[in-house]
């Protein structure tokens, strides 16, 4: 099963785009992140939902003491006003330079192994400078369940 058959085509994040727009793309396409294309049209990083939450809502102390938190912690939660402000911010401040790209002809098993190796749940499929989509564990699982893995 080659990953070109199971990757999910998405938009890319571009300089100046609002966080809300980028996040909405991830939500709609059900992917944990999308690539970031710089002003020169080259992939130069990634936007990740997980890292967005890590950066803006869950500092390390809360992660460290998560098991100690009771139910009465409303003041730590997302007030709507903060969520609105956050979504209006530019995506550029939330881009990570490290990302992994795979050739469309890679086998799914190799993609899964690379995900394990790098402790990630998604990878970008590119051919040269052409971005084709995101392959996730779930997209591979979907292909297995729907027998799409036998497409070749």
């Amino acid at each position, binding site marked *: 099963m080659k990953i070109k058959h199971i990757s999910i085509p998405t938009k890319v994040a571009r300089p100046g785009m609002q966080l809300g727009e980028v996040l909405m793309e991830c939500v709609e396409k059900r992917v944990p992140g999308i690539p970031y294309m710089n002003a020169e049209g080259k992939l130069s990083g990634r936007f990740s939902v997980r890292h967005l939450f890590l950066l803006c809502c869950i500092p390390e102390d809360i992660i460290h003491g998560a098991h100690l*938190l009771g139910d009465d912690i409303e*003041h730590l939660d997302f007030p709507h006003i903060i969520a609105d402000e956050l979504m209006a911010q530019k995506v550029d401040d939330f881009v990570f330079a490290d990302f992994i790209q795979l050739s469309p002809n890679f086998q799914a098993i190799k993609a899964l192994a690379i995900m394990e190796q790098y402790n990630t749940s998604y990878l970008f499929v590119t051919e040269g400078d052409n971005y084709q989509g995101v392959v996730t564990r779930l997209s591979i699982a979907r292909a297995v369940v729907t027998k799409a893995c036998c497409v070749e």
Partner: protein
Amino acid sequence: MDNLTPEMWTSAAVLVTAYGLIFSEVLHRTSAAIFGAVAMIGIGMWMGFYTQEAAILAVDANTILLLAAMMMLVALLRPTGAFDFAAVHITHWAKGNPKLLLIYLSLAVSVISTILDNVTTVIVFAPLTVLICRLLKINPMPYLMAEAMLSNIGGAATLVGDPPNLMIGSAGDISFNSFLVHMGFPVLVVWIGTVGLMLYLFRDQLTDGGKDPKTLVATHAIKDAEGLKRILFSLAIVVVLFFIHHTLHFLPAYASFIGLTLALLLMRPDMEKLFSSVNWSVLFFFAGLFMIVGGVESSGLLELLGHQLAKLATDPSKLLMTCLVLMWVAAILSAVVDNIPFTVTMIPIILGLEGSGVNIAPLWWALALGVGLGGNGTHIGATANIIAVSELEKSGMPEAKVTPLQWMRTGMPVMFFGLLLASVFYLLFFELFTTI
């Protein structure tokens, strides 16, 4: 100066180069210490003043092994959730009172630091403290600064509370009990005085009454109750052995290894994981320093320096002044540079004085007090301070960030006030410090 031989000059040059690399942070301190040790041995062999065997013998195995054993015991204790449990209960006892919370948290960190490494204690308590403050909607800065500074002070009270104490105790053959008797009282005085001073210095930040943090629950704090019982039992054995190690003719390292062995038998941990929790970098840093200073000692330079100091210290009327000068110089140097290299260098000098008929006991205590209290002056004076600053930065709260200057504004008064209290105590009870 006429007595200085080429070997002395050379060994001093290697020491100064290695220490320069350590303090300037051009190289990681462990790399710099290893480089210094290798250079000292090589040059020493070539010039004939140092040998590989002498370098190995210069390493204080008691200190290194004791540290390794305690690191492993802490690594076994940490995942059980004991620290989380303590932090939650301390918060509940404080009932949201910011001043009480500062006192209780600092007391807990200080008491734990008398037995366990204070750096580990602060590493564990720092994120918990930030979380508690976040839930109480108060600034964590005073709490983390107090924890770091008071744990530095607390660690100075015992033989095992601070690596310099370990080195001093090992070199001077000082027992755990003797350390506690001689250092415990002045440290207690300094600790109480420092808490009072911090409550005053942070009076503006400690006025907001936080709410009772029922938002923290201890239900899931303990992750391994059975493991906790076993490691606490092993630690209790270690503490008991520390109190009687001199009577049993046990080295502190052996006492700690008895407790570690017990813990290994009772807990059957994953040894690969356990050994990866040992901070080998610190241990090799210490070993490298011991080898560097061993080379300087072999060259005869430290003996020469000792003779110069002996002229002062043999005069009983000047001994007290020499001790006080040593305490203050050690403290001021410890505020700006790592206190370990200074301690390692001073140890053979003090030991050398014994041969000149000087009572070196008061010098040991003065050195221990100086290096123990000096670290509070600046944010780089002690590792615990660096951890506190880093944790405050990670909290993401703008009001919690501490600049080096802000640290000094609190740290310098704390350091000088502590030194002043320790000096007065030392002066009043000088007789106590003339014995080991």
